[in-house]
């Protein structure tokens, strides 16, 4: 099991990614909103300690809808399984924007500015995703690494997050998982990268997914 934590220089957190999380897919927000994003980024990001934990475990695709990772069977459904041919291992992970960021956002929320709250939420999303990017970068093995996949996305039932957490120690990175599969701190992520010599890394095929409101969706407005 590998564990890590890091800080991000606010200027290194790409504004474009925050805009994307805010719903600006291919559009640049007006200057006033860009300035608000910068101000909140500069205020909140220095408070954040991003944490992550991962393990590399044996994994295999069992059927067009099922797979096994670390001895545990999962049912991530057809979309994700279609990307898993050739998988021999998986890098299972959790990551979080951290409790410190969560506390900073709660302080902000108390100020009662809904616009700031919305932007802060998007910054948290990008911070949590930064932990995933760090883990992908950390992986130096020779097997091909896939895109990351998470319970709750691409039709993978979010309840299987409990199965995923069973591969980690209690409260990894301080993340608590509720009975309803809600992670706390809220800005946390979990999932896996498929690994395999014969694996082919494929982009997300959002066009075949029915979840039109997914914030990661690339073919929607």
């Amino acid at each position, binding site marked *: 099991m590998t564990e890590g934590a890091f800080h991000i220089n606010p200027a290194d957190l790409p504004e474009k990614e925050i805009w994307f999380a805010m*719903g600006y897919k291919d559009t640049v*927000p007006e200057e006033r*909103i860009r300035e608000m994003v910068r101000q909140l980024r500069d205020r909140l990001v220095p408070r954040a300690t991003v944490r992550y934990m991962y393990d590399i475990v044996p994994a295999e695709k069992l059927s067009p809808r099922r797979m096994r990772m670390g001895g545990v069977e999962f049912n991530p459904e057809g979309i994700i399984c279609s990307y898993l041919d050739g998988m021999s291992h998986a890098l299972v992970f959790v990551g979080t924007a951290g409790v410190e960021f969560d506390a900073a956002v709660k302080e902000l929320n108390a100020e009662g500015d809904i*616009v700031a709250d919305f932007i802060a939420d998007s910054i948290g999303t990008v911070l949590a995703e930064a932990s995933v990017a760090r883990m992908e970068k950390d992986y130096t093995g020779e097997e091909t690494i896939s895109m990351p996949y998470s319970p*709750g996305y691409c039709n993978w039932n979010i*309840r299987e997050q409990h199965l995923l957490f069973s591969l980690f120690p209690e409260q990894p990175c301080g993340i608590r998982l509720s009975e*309803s599969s*809600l992670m706390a701190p809220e800005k946390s992520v979990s999932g896996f990268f498929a690994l395999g010599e014969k694996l082919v890394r494929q982009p997300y095929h959002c066009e075949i997914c029915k979840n039109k*409101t997914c914030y990661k969706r690339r073919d929607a407005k």
Partner: protein
Amino acid sequence: MDELYEAIYRGMAPKAKIAVQASLDAAKTPQDIIDGSMIPAMEAIGADFESGKAFVPNLLLSARAMKSALDILKPLMMAEQTVTLGTVVIGTVKGDLHDIGKNLVASMLEGRGFNVINLGADVSKERFIEAARENKADIICLSALLTTTMGYMQEVVEAVKEAGLPVKIMVGGAPLNAEFAAKIGADGYSSNANEAVTLAKSLLN
């Protein structure tokens, strides 16, 4: 276009406050100001959002400007006994702590003239019923972001019906759709905050 309309459409709260005061100084009634400038501005930004010309932050900035103007008008409106469009009790259902989308809907509803009672997140069916009863609510809005918590919405709908409250129930949240809303017996579903306002208005008509 008048300055108040412009200030709210563009989401400029300080300018909206100045403009609303200027309108009052010009002897306009609060209701005329709201109907003539403020509501049309919110409708315009809502239409821009629907057509992809505006984004969530634009909606929120306008709602914030609307609220700052309403804060000046509300005390006067009470004196005139002006009524709101209706009372909405809103919350994220039990087991779910996602607040941001629900708060967005609450802001938009408030900005468009509804009296909004925001119960926060992780709200039980008993709390929804109690708040709806206390506030004589016209609508209950339920939010959920998890597939694991959307099921609780059905329990709330059933409990509200069992309690015999004369309210409409709206649902929303990323994993939901209109079919789910119909299946659990809700009166409507909206996929975004602007649509929620349109739905709320139509449910009361």
